[in-house]
């Protein structure tokens, strides 16, 4: 009665199994070649036969000036129609390219000053090299070695402190630095620590250097090739800059050898090193021998911290209303903890954001309408879209706050008004958060904290939460900052600043009055002036508080926010952090939840013979320590498998018959085979280690607990 996969009698293999069956033992094979049905750009999606007949153009730009007029009346009624998939995909591409450009601009701006400093230093160093060793052009082309003194052999080296143990974030920075230097005419080669490995030796890094600078050269690690390349044309007017992004991960001996070699060639090839240092400036001293260090002429630069970058990214990408995509409070909190506790790299944050963006556009029906939500004067376009997409209204019924739109005569009006309000509140929200950020800057607060708190829907209370029949579809509530939260701190800071301002003004004005009136000070006038200033400032502080309370409306409290807001934190988490160690164990221990069969009983803790063999084996293994006796394990497995069979057979069959005996022998062989297969499967998953020679009867458990 076994019903689970491995317990089944052999069933005909699936169609594709037969095709790939011949390929199972081939290291690789071509599954299929690209099908070129047309020369036009390919689309991944095929429309359903019903919707193939209709072709429509939907303007995604959000611009009111170009409403598409030639619209076919027959529209796809199914929200999952491939045409909408295509629209969503296009919208994603546009949105992400905008976000991506913003991110790159922000990161470039952060480093721009440093890049300029490095460029000036490179130019100055090159001039110094040329000044200390005035080499005629003939000398450049003369054969190696060039006799020079020790001073000329020193290579100017910039150690750029990344202030970040994770070098991933800085890969892009060093690439952009390379591009920046290339623009000023330098010959730049970006090398990585992999080029300085002990296994490949000096040959590998020279090959990489040649491959970057002299792409047409033969594949020979010969530095003289670089020398002759450098002497050609007018190349010797600019230095060769070698960037090593993570020098601490390089092999010290290979790097030292490379430095010594380059210093020998310093006159012929004026090289300048730029090396990324993740820990301290003392790192090169620990890595390199004194001989190599003597060849370097160091100079220190420092990059911004990951937190600074993150602040800038949050501000530019998620707060300023330039993007068409945002995230919910839960997602923001997850991303914050992912950044602070799990990974700590800006790269992973950007990656997570992109993944959230993809998931949003692939999961949310109306996400394709998000492109243009934040542009002004698009009411006509929205109305037009509502007209050409009658199903939009139908789809909006899925959206949670749609029920509140009863006050409008036409659904289209409600839709357009809703989107308008979304745009208005989004802008307000962005402006207020920017104000809070500015305050936070003085207090060295993390923008991410303010951002998360400003998104928290629980901080926002509606004025009339029970009045669902209200004609006002838009929220009219107040934002109450959490006590001790970032926003409360920021507001407190504003209060402090106002008080400081008051004190300054008091002293200034008081002094003025005293000066003007001299000895005849009218005390009441002075007090009145003080009182009026104080009340004005109090009003200013109250105004700030009121603005925060009334205009900081979290997205999740605004109707139609689903169009631009990604909320599925669990989906993002699953896609971002695969946790195979835990998940595979859960698969085996709770196989019923995945297979959803009705034969295995309702409780996961009970072992049933109809369960998957490997699942049975792994559950049985939980009863052992780190070593499992094979014999005992097999007997338990056999007992579990035969448990239900023997119960049913005992009733009707005579136990002494010969047929029964043969069946039992066959059954034993089958159980042994199933046992072996389950052990192999556990080995493949890495949950089991094979017996050692010392204890051949025992296998070793590897994972304990989830």
């Amino acid at each position, binding site marked *: 009665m076994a019903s689970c996969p491995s317990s089944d009698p052999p069933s005909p293999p699936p169609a594709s199994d037969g095709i790939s069956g011949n390929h199972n033992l081939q290291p690789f094979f071509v599954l299929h070649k690209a099908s070129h049905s047309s020369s036009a750009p390919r689309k991944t999606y095929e429309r359903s036969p019903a919707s193939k007949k209709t072709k429509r153009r939907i303007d995604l730009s959000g611009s009111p000036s170009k409403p598409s007029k030639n619209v076919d009346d027959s529209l796809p009624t199914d929200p999952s129609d491939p045409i909408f998939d295509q629209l969503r995909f296009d919208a994603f591409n546009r949105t992400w390219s905008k976000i991506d450009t913003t991110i790159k601009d922000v990161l470039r701006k952060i480093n721009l000053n440093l890049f300029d400093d490095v460029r000036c230093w490179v130019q100055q160093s090159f001039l110094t090299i040329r000044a200390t060793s005035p080499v005629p052009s003939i000398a450049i082309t003369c054969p190696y070695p060039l006799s020079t003194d020790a001073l000329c052999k020193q290579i100017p080296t910039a150690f750029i402190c990344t202030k970040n143990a994770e070098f991933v974030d800085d890969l892009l920075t060093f690439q952009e630095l390379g591009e920046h230097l290339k623009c000023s005419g330098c010959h730049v080669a970006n090398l990585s620590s992999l080029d300085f490995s002990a296994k490949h030796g000096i040959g590998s890094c020279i090959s990489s250097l040649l491959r970057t600078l002299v792409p047409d050269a033969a594949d020979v690690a010969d530095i003289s090739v670089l020398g002759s390349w450098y002497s050609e044309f007018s190349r010797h007017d600019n230095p060769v800059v070698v960037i090593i992004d993570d020098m601490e991960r390089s092999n010290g001996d290979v790097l030292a050898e490379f430095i010594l070699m380059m210093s020998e060639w310093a006159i012929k090839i004026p090289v300048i090193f730029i090396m990324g240092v993740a820990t301290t400036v003392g790192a090169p001293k620990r890595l390199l021998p004194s001989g190599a260090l003597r060849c370097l002429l160091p100079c220190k630069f420092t990059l911004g911290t990951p937190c600074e970058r993150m602040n800038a990214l949050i501000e530019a990408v998620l707060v300023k209303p330039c993007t068409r995509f945002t995230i919910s409070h839960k997602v923001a909190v997850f991303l914050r903890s992912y950044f602070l506790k799990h990974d700590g790299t800006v*790269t992973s944050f950007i990656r997570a954001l992109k993944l959230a963006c993809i998931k949003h556009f692939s999961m949310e029906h109306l996400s394709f309408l998000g492109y243009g939500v934040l542009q002004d004067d698009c009411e006509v376009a929205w109305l037009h879209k509502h007209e050409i997409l009658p199903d939009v209204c139908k789809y909006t019924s899925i959206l949670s706050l749609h029920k509140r739109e009863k006050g409008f005569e036409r659904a289209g009006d409600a839709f357009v008004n809703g989107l308008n309000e979304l745009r208005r509140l989004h802008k307000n929200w962005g402006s207020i958060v920017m104000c809070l950020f500015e305050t936070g800057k003085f207090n060295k607060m993390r923008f991410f904290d303010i951002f998360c708190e400003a998104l928290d829907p629980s901080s926002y209370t509606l004025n009339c939460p029970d009045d669902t029949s209200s004609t006002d579809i838009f929220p009219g509530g107040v934002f109450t900052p959490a006590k001790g939260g970032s926003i409360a701190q920021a507001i407190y800071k504003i209060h402090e600043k106002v008080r400081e301002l008051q004190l300054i003004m008091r002293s200034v004005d008081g002094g003025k009055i005293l000066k003007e009136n001299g000895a005849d000070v009218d005390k009441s006038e002075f007090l009145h002036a003080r009182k009026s200033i104080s009340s004005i400032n109090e009003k200013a502080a109250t105004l700030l508080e009121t603005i925060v309370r009334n205009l900081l409306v979290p997205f999740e409290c605004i109707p139609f926010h689903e169009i631009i807001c990604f909320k599925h934190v669990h989906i993002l988490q699953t896609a971002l952090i695969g946790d195979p160690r835990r998940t595979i164990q859960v698969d085996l221990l709770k196989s019923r939840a995945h297979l959803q069969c009705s034969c295995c009983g309702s409780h996961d803790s009970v072992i049933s013979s109809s369960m998957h063999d490997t699942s049975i084996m792994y559950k049985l293994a939980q009863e052992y320590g780190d070593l499992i006796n094979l014999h005992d394990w097999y007997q338990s497995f056999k007992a579990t498998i035969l448990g239900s069979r023997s119960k049913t057979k005992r009733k009707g069959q005579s136990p002494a018959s010969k047929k029964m005996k043969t069946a039992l022998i066959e059954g034993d062989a089958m159980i042994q085979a199933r046992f072996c297969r389950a052990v192999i499967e556990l080995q493949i998953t890495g949950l089991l280690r094979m017996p050692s020679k010392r204890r051949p009867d025992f296998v070793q458990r590897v994972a304990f607990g989830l």
Partner: protein
Amino acid sequence: MAVETRRRRRSLGSQGITFWPERLAADPGRNPVASSLISISQTSRCGFGLLMYGFGSKKVLLEDFASTSLTDYGALVLNGYLPSINLKQVIIAICEMLQDQLKTSRKGSVRKKAKTQQPLSFQSMEDLLMFLNEQPSDDNESFVCLIIHNIDGPALRDFETQQYLARLASCSPVRVIASTDHVNAPLLWDKKMVHTQFNWCWYHVPTFAPYKAEGVFFPLILAGSSAAQSTKTALVVLQSLTPNAQSVFKVLAEHQLANVKEEGMPVNTLYTKCREKFLVSSQVTLNSHLTEFKDHELVKVRKHSDGQDCLYIPLTTESLERLLQELV
């Protein structure tokens, strides 16, 4: 009841399987679009590598997915569960596929020809990767899908291979769709590989399908472990011995390879040969080496047909050849 389960399984194995990952993650009732296989292929098109994990073989799943939703692009399958794989051949095949693809789509020559017009097989890995990197990616439409079964398989488990795979995955015209089965698979990659090269998007797909192809090379636990003396364990033992002991083993191995049909090498013959090569100075020295070999089950003794004791290595000819190659 059993029929119901089987039916469910088959649907996973044939058509339903393609959109299963998203359906597991999202509630299909509330998000019908989430159960679209397009979203998975979109993720791949957007530059993410797809990594399927969970218990059960994912071989059929991945190949079905590629056959149904990635037909516009070339697809190459790499069986990572095999004990040995030549990665260079794989990269050459990808380069060839891409060249064909670009030629057909543009009806012209490839924008950047491979270095010095050499045949691809003559070029180094670096050149091949550079060739792939330099292919145009602006249209984001011409790419090759590399499907890797068991990216954590025995032949792909070393750091260097993973580095090459990561670099391959970061090439703009290559999209990687892989499966992993080992619980410790994430330990294979550093942050650079994960975040910037493979760029994984994880999908939990517990298919519970039997590991038919993947388990072929694992020894059966009840078939006796002595017979399963692998090349690797022998190599580890030999590398821990002295060079002279290794040379004695080589003499025996070479004799066994040259005389496959013989039952073994008599001890006296081995002694004479080793003495000629100045590997041992006396019978006592040879015996000490042989004791070491026997203790580690590298060498066994059996009776020759003429009653004489002879030595043999309990490895297949193929394993022995590989062992000698790796021992050099």
